[in-house]
């Protein structure tokens, strides 16, 4: 038995080796050619574009700024660490001199680095996406189950769906300022504003796709559910939810893409911390390095968006039972 499996493994290895050589090489080579050509065209065109902040940065300047941004982050972290060590020492000294002294810990108030901004943006987009999903999936299920509810709310959905985040933002900002009043807020107001704007704009694809998925459940499966006399809750849990999962995930992937795009715009306009604010600050700053730093941000935004989509795709492939439809 073991020798059999061994020889099987060997033969499959031998078989797959030539395949690996040609197709894998091409899969590496073609994107490399594409990227190299793009970089060449970029560096050729960049010096010819004159802006008020100097020539448009080429790949070299952008790379340089990437390293600078990273260094600034490291330095900032070191400063922060030093600040806390100093504070601790000072507190220890005071406590030694005066035992009744109450130790106060002040948090570090240095400026947010590029890396911090990425973190803020990621947290905000995920929170907004989760909130949007928590609203859109249950609502989508109800709309899918009831044709009447669908007819009632469909016009509202269709009108709100195409509204730009920039139009929502002033309203959301005002409402949050008015409603979210607390002595000791758990979250920053700007965080709440971004979160709600992101949710408002990104919940529609999930809502619509879930509703369509639920409404189009196989008639036979509905009959099975009836013959088994499944209760409404069991029916939703055992039949409705699983059968609408492929459509639901199509919607979720669209939603997270929209959420990320919306977030950057919202941060920029509302001065909420995050990558959008970084871009805006650099634009206002107007130093000779600003454009290169903005390009670093643009590439980062693109790369993070790509990663978010890949993660959703992985989850989708894991939970999708319908192997007849290829997920890509």
């Amino acid at each position: 038995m073991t020798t059999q499996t061994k020889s099987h493994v060997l033969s499959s290895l031998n078989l797959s080796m030539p395949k690996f050589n040609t197709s894998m090489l091409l899969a590496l080579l073609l994107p490399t050619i594409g990227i190299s050509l793009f970089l060449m065209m970029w560096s050729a065109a960049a010096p010819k574009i004159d802006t008020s902040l100097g020539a448009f940065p080429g790949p070299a300047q952008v790379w340089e700024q990437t390293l600078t941004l990273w260094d600034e982050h490291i330095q900032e972290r070191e400063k922060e660490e030093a600040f806390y060590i100093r504070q601790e020492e000072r507190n220890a000294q005071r406590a030694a001199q005066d035992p009744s002294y109450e130790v106060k810990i002040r948090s570090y108030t240095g400026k947010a680095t590029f890396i911090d901004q990425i973190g803020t943006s990621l947290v905000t987009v995920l929170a907004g996406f989760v909130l949007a999903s928590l609203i859109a999936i249950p609502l989508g299920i109800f709309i899918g189950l009831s044709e009447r509810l669908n007819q009632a709310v469909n016009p509202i959905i269709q009108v709100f769906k195409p509204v730009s985040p920039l139009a929502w933002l002033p309203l959301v900002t005002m409402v949050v300022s008015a409603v979210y009043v607390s002595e000791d807020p758990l979250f920053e107001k700007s965080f709440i504003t971004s979160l709600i704007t992101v949710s408002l704009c990104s919940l529609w694809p999930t809502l619509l796709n879930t509703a369509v998925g639920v409404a189009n459940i196989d008639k036979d499966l509905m009959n099975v559910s009836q013959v088994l006399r499944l209760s409404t809750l069991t029916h939703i849990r055992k039949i409705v939810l699983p059968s609408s999962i492929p459509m639901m995930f199509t919607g979720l992937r669209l939603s997270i893409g929209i959420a990320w795009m919306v977030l950057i715009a919202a941060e920029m306009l509302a001065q909420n911390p995050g990558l959008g604010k970084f871009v805006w600050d650099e634009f206002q700053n107007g130093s000779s390095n600003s454009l290169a730093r903005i390009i670093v941000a643009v590439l980062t935004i693109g790369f993070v968006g790509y990663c978010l989509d890949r993660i959703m795709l992985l989850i989708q492939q894991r939970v999708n039972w319908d192997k007849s439809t290829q997920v890509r």
Partner: protein
Amino acid sequence: MSKLHLELSAIGIEFPTPKGAFRALANVNLKINKGEFISLIGHSGCGKSTVLNIIAGLHQATEGGAVLDGKEVNEPGPERAVVFQNHSLLPWLTAYENVELAVNQVFKNTMSKKEKREWIEHNLELVHMSHALHKRPDEISGGMKQRVGIARALSMQPQVLLMDEPFGALDALTRAHLQDSLMEIQAQLGNTVVMITHDVDEAVLLSDRIVMMTNGPAATVGEILKIDLPRPRNRIALADDPTYNHYRSAVLKFLYEKQKKIEDIKSASQSVGIKKATSEVA
């Protein structure tokens, strides 16, 4: 001797259409005894499935109704389990889990966990699916899916097993295998079965009585043929049996002489299309 189990009395049904009500069935009467195997046969569109759906409770009769053990059928329920033509297994569950869904629902409070597991495995064994308990529907063949569908229906311990062309979508060899399995199971369990079929051989081989339906609209029971062949029945031995062939030709006569299907416009235009195509080939 055998007692009345399921009675269809004066069933009629109308479906609303844009052109007014369409009367699909009129005055369908049938008395079925416990343990009987009944086949419903007739041309497509004659309302066989509608009869089955009324017994299942998935459709409501406009007039009359079905009475099971003295109780009128108003809604679907597991005591009238249905085997659908397209297996209708939940594609995201394994064979075992599909049967489990039914068992958990029907025997929620009456079986322990262990009893449930044994009961699920027992039913899948009945249909010879023990080797693929944990395969999902897309990993097994059409015949195997239909076996699991039958196991799911049997696991509900139904008083009546309703089968809507259960083997219609299968190839001839698989169909023969499944027919033999079904005969075996029925001999063992003594279920009352109502099965819809298009296949004359299948009807004669499996049934105690064949109910032949007239063409719609307003279809009803045309003739009932009692099949007096000893069980267990063997398809090879029966192939040359004069009684068997006599029953077979009786059903064929009913379908192709007495109830010759008058082509409606749609199927007529289809056959014109076929003629056209053949003449073009010629």
